[in-house]
């Protein structure tokens, strides 16, 4: 495959305005599937979690999952959408072996939620309002594995395996309107938008939102128009970009690729494209054209979805605080600088810091533990900081520091014990004997020894060169194996030297 020419990103932005659009599929974590009583599971033996309708068996009929409808309404409300008093399912007809019925039950001209807006915050704190066109319910398809052939794609494969466990898993597809004005931050907006959707569904508790498992999947639409032109350019749709970083890279790549074509006088083909994580490039999928005729018509096996006003009001009242508003509130409450808060947010640690503060630690201390030592250990162990320790234990550790039981250095040793699963902070302090020695007796003995060993230093202190005491303090701390309060040691050194 010939390598596509790309234009320098800044140059591309000089010549063209990027216009974005995103379609994000969210898999709901309901107990059962969208239209059957089969479990909505992940990672089970292929073709085990199935009901007749998931396989499109003759005579089978779909029945709508009420829990999925409620989740979808909550999501629609969280996206600032209006909820349709009546919405309908439709059949999207196309033949594909991962689709048991050879049609997908989706929503077409009557989605459950429409006309919303989400605030997306970029790294530098800029907020971009992304207009939402609609959010509609549909079912997922099965999963194909292509065996043989070089590409792992259906073309050239020797044979393909189909696992229908995923067939019928409830999805909500969130479709944005065209997004203008992101300019050179368009790639970053892509990642930030997906992160925002992820935050929203996590705060609602309606999806596991694990992109690596496909719980959250993003199709990124990119088009360019020459500066000053009103008419939108031809767009491409890069399918299934499945990490936030990839969304960012794919948008950037498409801007550069399209700019190179347009600047050379070429035209963009309206098509779906595949994202290649390894090369950081996209390649053409199938062209989108009039031949793509899904022959939508209202699903005759299902009645319209008519949520009562009561239900909508109940779900609206139960909505959690919107993630963007929550961030603003917490940043204010914690008194963090922009930079400090972004460290917490970008590390995905807002909930942890919040819980640690709630358990009694100061915001500054909570932030320091989570974005500092715990993040360092997590990176070193290739784990997530949130999986290492509980916020309650972090708060307990900090309380030991605040009460003077532990120095910062000792506290880091206790933390290592906590990560290793040795117990609560207090248990580790007891077991390892790590508490600060607060009895002056042993300290004075150690200081007298140190002074006797360094008569020249004693002389200097007596001559008023107080800074010389550092050498004695160091020796004492070493002798105490760190379990002493250095400030108290300093006081005592000066006292003893004066005698």
């Amino acid at each position, binding site marked *: 495959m010939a390598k596509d020419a790309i234009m320098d990103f800044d140059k591309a932005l000089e010549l063209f305005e990027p216009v974005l659009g995103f379609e994000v599929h969210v898999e709901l974590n309901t107990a059962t599937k969208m239209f059957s009583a089969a479990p909505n599971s992940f990672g089970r033996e292929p073709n085990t979690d199935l009901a007749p309708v998931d396989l499109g068996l003759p*005579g089978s009929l779909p029945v709508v999952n009420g829990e999925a409808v409620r989740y979808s309404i909550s999501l629609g409300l969280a996206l600032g959408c209006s909820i349709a008093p009546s919405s309908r399912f439709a059949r999207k*007809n196309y033949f594909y072996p991962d689709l048991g019925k050879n049609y997908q039950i989706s929503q077409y001209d009557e989605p459950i939620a429409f006309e919303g807006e989400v605030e997306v915050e970029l790294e530098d704190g800029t907020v971009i309002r992304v207009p939402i066109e609609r959010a509609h319910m549909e079912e997922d398809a099965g999963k194909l594995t292509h065996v043989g052939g070089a590409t792992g794609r259906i073309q050239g494969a020797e044979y393909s395996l189909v696992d229908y466990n995923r067939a019928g898993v409830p999805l909500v597809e969130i479709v944005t309107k065209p997004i203008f004005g992101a300019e050179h931050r368009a790639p970053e907006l892509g990642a930030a938008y997906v992160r925002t959707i992820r935050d929203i569904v996590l705060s609602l508790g309606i999806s596991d939102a694990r992109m690596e498992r496909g719980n959250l999947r993003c199709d990124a639409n990119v088009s360019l128009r020459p500066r000053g032109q009103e008419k939108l350019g031809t767009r491409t749709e890069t399918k299934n970009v499945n990490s936030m970083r990839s969304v960012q890279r794919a948008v950037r790549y498409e801007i550069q690729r399209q700019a190179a074509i347009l600047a050379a006088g070429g035209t963009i083909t309206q098509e779906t494209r595949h994202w290649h994580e390894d090369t950081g490039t996209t390649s053409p999928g199938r062209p989108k054209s009039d031949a793509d005729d899904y022959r939508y018509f209202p699903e*005759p096996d299902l009645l319209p979805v008519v949520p009562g006003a009561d239900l909508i009001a109940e779900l609206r009242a139960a909505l959690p605080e919107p993630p963007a508003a929550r961030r603003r509130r917490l940043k204010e409450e914690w008194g963090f600088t922009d930079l400090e808060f972004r460290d917490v947010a970008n590390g995905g640690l807002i909930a942890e810091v919040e819980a640690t503060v709630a358990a009694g630690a100061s915001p500054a201390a909570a932030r320091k533990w989570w974005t500092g030592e715990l993040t360092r250990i997590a990176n070193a162990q290739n784990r997530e900081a949130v999986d290492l320790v509980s916020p309650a234990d972090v708060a307990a550790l900090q309380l030991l520091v605040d009460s003077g039981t532990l120095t910062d250095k000792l506290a880091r040793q206790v933390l290592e014990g906590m990560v290793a699963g040795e117990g609560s902070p207090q248990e580790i302090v007891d077991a390892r004997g790590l508490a600060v020695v607060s009895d002056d007796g042993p300290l004075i003995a150690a200081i007298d020894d140190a002074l006797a060993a360094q008569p020249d230093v004693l002389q200097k202190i007596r001559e008023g060169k107080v800074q010389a005491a550092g050498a004695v303090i160091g020796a004492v701390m070493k002798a105490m194996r760190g379990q002493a309060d250095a400030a108290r040691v300093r006081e005592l050194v000066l006292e003893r030297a004066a005698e």
Partner: protein
Amino acid sequence: MTDLTRLSAADLAAELSSGTVSSVEATRAHLDRIAAVDGDVHAFLHVSDHALEVAAGIDRRRSAGDALGPLAGVPLAIKDVLVTTDMPSTSGSRILEGYMSPFDATVVSRARAAGLVPLGKTNMDEFAMGSSTEHSAYGPTHNPWDLERIPGGSGGGSASAVAAFEAPLALGSDTGGSIRQPAHVTGTVGVKPTYGGVSRYGAIALASSLDQVGPVSRTVLDAGLLHDVIGGHDANDSTSLADAWPSFADAAREGARGDVLRGLRVGVIRELPDSGFQPGVSTAFRAALAAMEARGAEIVEISAPHFEYGVAAYYLILPAEASSNLAKFDSVRFGMRVNVPGGTVEDVMAATRDAGFGDEVKRRIILGTYALSAGYYDAYYGSAQKVRTLIQRDFAAAFERVDVIATPSAPTTAFKLGEKIDDPLQMYLNDVTTIPANLAGVPGISIPAGLAEEDGLPVGIQFLAPAREDARLYRVGAAVESVLVDSWGGPLLDRAPVLGGAR
């Protein structure tokens, strides 16, 4: 000894519950009858190899004193459109040859629970597309009144099985007349319930918004007894109504003994011209109306100006839904597979569908695919849905003035096998009086009205009632049946020719 196959289901049930006859005896009598005549009739695609065991189980439960339903031990024929776990379900198609379903249709499980004994699966036009059973991939069924003639369709197998005394009861499905038109040409009774009155779960879908499962029998009471067993809400069918239904058997009994016809307002549609009907059909229809009038019914001319567009609208909506419903037959998960060496999955799907579907199925898939295509949707599917609304309004207006509407059940008596097979349009027009009920979702019943004078073949009269008023049809149907059978001096089927030389 009484010939058990000649008894109505109600009479047979009475013998069974009184203990004078066992279910094994009744079942064996019907299996013997099938063995004797089905070579000629070909009503069955599959005969159960364990019906006698099922019957023996019912007999054991009865002697153990178990409480059994009114139809326990009575044999039942099942249209092959309904999936069954113990017998293949093909819907008359080669593409499903030998297909075993992992679940029973709701109506089948309810029939089993009520103690009915499944005898076998009955023949039908492929995927219920047709009015003659000639489109079955397994050969046509023959009309017991004249083996050279069609038994109607798509449920010709169920109607013939009942008419030929191979079964006292059968299950059918009616998308545009597939229960009522076969009843008309075989001198039997068929009911299309209100849409949503009987579960569609396990009925291999033709057109989801039109399909309805219903009873096939020789008497109105028998249909009511079976309807009582299979009807009512089913959580597996989202379009099933949550209504509590009255007993349709009780309604039929009330109609047979009471004075239901006095003051009954019977609507006759002005726009259905006599000219479109075979003279003998019109004559028998008028005679039945006259008999009703003589018992105090009032015949009222009503207008249903949009009925004439019914067939056109139906032949857009049905193929559109069918083209989608039949997409699942692709060889990937079940059913026939035609391998294409070196081919892609699309090649295999195409080759399988080419070999597995008959011409009529392909014709309707093409029609439906076209009707749903971008740019044509509004003109075809959209317009057809508007006609549907207009027909519903015609019904609503008519039912403000009358209690039931009466029509001939079909324009002609049974035509000869092969006569219309190459003229789909003529075949489609055979459904002109039955289609409006499916488009509007209202219930309909066809009962024998008499024999056409020119060919001596059965003619049916159809009654239609407002949605949810199925019980009214059973009352009126049983009343008219009782009047007509009295006037004939016995059931119409007594005049059918003897089959198989056995009796």
